[in-house]
């Protein structure tokens, strides 16, 4: 027997109706019954009282006149009342006068109420009725009625009636209930059926046929239908959204994935895995060790360990490794992942695999190219150095040229010719030399002329001597440059202790001829710097180049007050700095950054290597070459900074970056 709450509602309602009807009926019947039973007694009593009164009344005469026969006759009429089992008339003195029914003996009579009244004794009602004639007692009537029999009969009768009524009522209740409860249960059942159908078939297009009820059931049905519509719409929207999302995820150019944080069993893999690795998502998901199996053998251990570590750290991560694709090729994977935390525990790992094979290849290609470039640069650098050397040699040769030109000029315009002419003149007048010298007007000039000539020739000589010195110096320098170039091809520059001031002076000296010729004032602003260790020749080359450029700038400016200021100092970073400033044509701001570029030159016929190789060289030596100019016509200042000492480094072939401009 199912518990009450699991019964179908129709059964429930029926049972409830039955229960209610039954209970109500029972209460009513019980009440009536009790009422009847209670009433019965009093009714019976009243009935008996009436009877007793009548009999008593009728027996007054018999008693008064002591007519026992008549008395017996009177009470004998009680036979008409079946419930009366015995009756007796007694005279006032207590003696029996007449009897009816079971002879009442004294013991019986004693049960009766003494004077008048009723007593229920067991199954009998005992009635004592005084017989009065004209208010005077003439005797007593004793009635004994059996009420129990009647009662039982009555109860039996009532019982049957009750039973009948109950059966009929219940039948009626069942009938009516089963008809009427449909009003309530039919809509409910319809709802329940539809709800179940919706749940089973997951078909949200079902609807409950709208009942025309305006009560709660009707509203419920309506709400239910509305809810289904809403669900249907939401379902469709969700479906669309999900499809969109799925399409999105599967269209991302990478394998979107999700896996368990402990065993890395994958719970989701996007469709791109087919394209990128040639595997089906299904085979990936069914094999809990799929990822581990497809790792490249060399990377497998590292990859798995890294993954575990990252998950343990619970931070977003990415790292690279190789996997084997379905067709056997190796694919470089960049894995980016995040750890999903739920209830303070890693619940899942999610991320994306990106195919970086091409990038890796490109990187290695790049690497190769870089190496090639390095080599080429080296070669180029060397070529550049050669060019630089040539440039520098060219610079020096310029000076040599200048010197030799000076010498030639000097020699050509040498006053020796005049001396020769004078000699000739003197030879002409050899005979009368004293007279010539003292009398001839021309002759009188000769001593003066000779003295003048001596002076000039002396100066010439000094000049020539100086030039020759310079020449020798420069030639020496060229030799050094060339030998340095020879050395440079094999080993890096030799570091040696240098005196910065001397080095600067040397550079100036090389160009000194040019300065004097072009009227350039050279100003020296030397501060003391500690002895430094550097590649003397390289530094010299840079300085020569700078000075050369300054000279050209000054030349181009056309100023009359050409000035070259050379400074030596420290820059606080344990570097010494040499500044070469001129008030020449300056550098337009747009050229400031390009000035160190390879091949940049503003001079006609310039090959543009000078500053470029100078900057490179400075960088190589751990320093830098920088420039500042206020603009066109404002002159320029080049600053070379180099460390006092430095370790030996590999020749770097970095491309020159834009130099910082310094004030």
């Amino acid at each position: 027997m199912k518990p009450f709450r699991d019964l179908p509602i129709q059964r429930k309602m029926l049972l409830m109706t039955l229960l209610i009807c039954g209970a109500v009926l029972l209460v009513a019947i019980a009440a009536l019954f009790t009422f009847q039973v209670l009433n019965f007694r009093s009714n019976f009593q009243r009935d008996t009282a009436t009877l007793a009164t009548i009999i008593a009344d009728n027996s007054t005469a018999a008693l008064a006149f002591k007519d026992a026969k008549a008395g017996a006759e009177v009470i004998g009429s009680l036979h008409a009342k079946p419930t009366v089992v015995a009756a007796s008339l007694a005279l006032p003195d207590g003696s029996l006068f007449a009897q009816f029914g079971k002879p009442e003996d004294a013991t019986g009579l004693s049960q009766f109420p003494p004077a008048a009244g009723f007593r229920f004794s067991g199954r009998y009602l005992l009635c004592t009725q005084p017989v009065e004639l004209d208010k005077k007692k003439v005797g007593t009537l004793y009635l004994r009625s059996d009420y129990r029999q009647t009662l039982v009969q009555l109860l039996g009768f009532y019982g049957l009636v009750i039973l009948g009524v109950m059966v009929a009522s219940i039948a009626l209740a069942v009938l009516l209930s089963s008809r009427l409860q449909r009003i309530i249960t039919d809509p409910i059942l319809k709802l329940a059926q539809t709800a179940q159908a919706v749940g089973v078939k997951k078909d949200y297009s079902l609807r409950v046929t709208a009942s025309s009820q305006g009560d709660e059931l009707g509203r419920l049905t309506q709400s239910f239908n509305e809810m289904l519509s809403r669900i249907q719409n939401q379902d469709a929207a969700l479906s669309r959204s999900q499809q969109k999302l799925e399409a999105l995820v599967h269209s991302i150019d990478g394998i979107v994935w999700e896996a368990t944080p402990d065993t890395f069993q994958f719970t989701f893999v996007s469709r791109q895995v087919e394209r990128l690795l040639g595997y089906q998502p299904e085979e990936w998901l069914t094999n809990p060790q799929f990822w581990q199996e497809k790792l490249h053998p060399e990377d497998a251990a590292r990859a798995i360990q890294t993954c575990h570590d990252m998950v343990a750290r619970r931070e977003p991560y990415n790292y690279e490794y190789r996997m084997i694709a379905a067709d056997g090729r190796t694919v470089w994977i960049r894995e980016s992942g995040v750890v999903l935390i739920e209830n303070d525990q890693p619940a899942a790992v999610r991320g994306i695999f990106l195919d970086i094979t091409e990038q890796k290849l490109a990187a290695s290609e790049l690497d190769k190219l870089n190496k090639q470039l390095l080599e080429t640069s080296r070669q180029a650098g060397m070529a550049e150095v050669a060019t630089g050397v040539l440039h520098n040699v060219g610079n020096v040769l310029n000076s040599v040229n200048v010197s030799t030109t000076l010498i030639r000029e000097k020699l050509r315009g040498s006053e020796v010719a005049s001396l020769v002419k004078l000699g000739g003149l003197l030879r002409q007048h050899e005979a009368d030399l004293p007279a010539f010298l003292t009398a001839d007007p021309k002759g009188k000039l000769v001593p003066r002329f000779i003295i003048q000539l001596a002076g000039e020739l002396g100066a010439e000589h000094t000049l020539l001597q100086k030039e020759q010195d310079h020449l020798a110096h420069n030639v020496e320098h060229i030799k050094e440059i060339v030998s340095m170039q020879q050395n440079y091809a094999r080993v890096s520059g030799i570091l040696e202790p240098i005196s910065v001031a001397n080095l600067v002076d040397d550079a100036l000296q090389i160009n000194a001829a040019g300065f004097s010729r072009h009227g350039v004032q050279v100003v020296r602003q030397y501060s003391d710097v500690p002895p430094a260790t550097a590649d003397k020749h390289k530094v010299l080359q840079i300085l020569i180049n700078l000075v050369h450029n300054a000279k050209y700038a000054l030349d181009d400016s056309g100023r009359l007050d050409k000035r070259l200021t050379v400074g030596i100092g420290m820059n606080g970073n344990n570097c010494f700095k040499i500044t070469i400033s001129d008030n020449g044509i300056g550098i337009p701001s747009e050229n400031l950054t390009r000035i160190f570029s390879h091949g940049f030159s503003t001079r006609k016929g310039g090959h543009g290597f000078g500053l470029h190789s100078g900057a490179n060289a400075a960088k190589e030596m751990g320093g830098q070459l920088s420039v500042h100019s206020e603009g066109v016509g404002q002159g320029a200042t080049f600053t070379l900074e180099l460390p006092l000492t430095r370790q030996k480094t590999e020749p770097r072939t970095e491309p020159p970056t834009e130099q910082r401009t310094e004030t």
Partner: protein
Amino acid sequence: MRSQPTTRRKWLLSLVGLCLAGAWAAAADTGPVAGEYQVKATFLYNFTKFTDWPPRVFASSNAPIVIGIVGEDPFGKTIDEVVSGEVVGGHPLVVKRLHADDDLRSCHVLFISRSEKERLPAMLSRLKGSPVLSVGEINGFAEQGGMVNLLLANKTVKIEINQAAAEQAGLQISAKLLKLARLVKS
């Protein structure tokens, strides 16, 4: 189950009852004289209860009902005892002893003693039409026109009633009494 004390009580009462019954029987046996006129006196008294007189015979509502005894008084003080202090229907009862030639119509109930047997018809004719309940104790009393006759038979007093005579006199005798009596016609 009745308990012992109750049973004993009942036995006692039975005994008493029996004795009473015996006494009664005995009373019935010992001399019709003593008991007879006790009974007849009681009857007379009771007749007043079962008879209706016309209102004119009473001067007022509480005028006495006169029970007259004419002839030899067989009752003695019995009747006086029976009647004394009794009121029937508001009328007190009075006993009067009369001589034959007294105004018999002054009674309501007249007991004609056995001794007046000879004078009976004359008395009855004198009473004829008057609302006096004539009671006799002689055979044939009722046939002669008397209304009620009390006869002793089988140790009991029987009643004979001449209803017509009573009706003629304007007296109404209760049917209850009539029922007990042997109706006689004159």
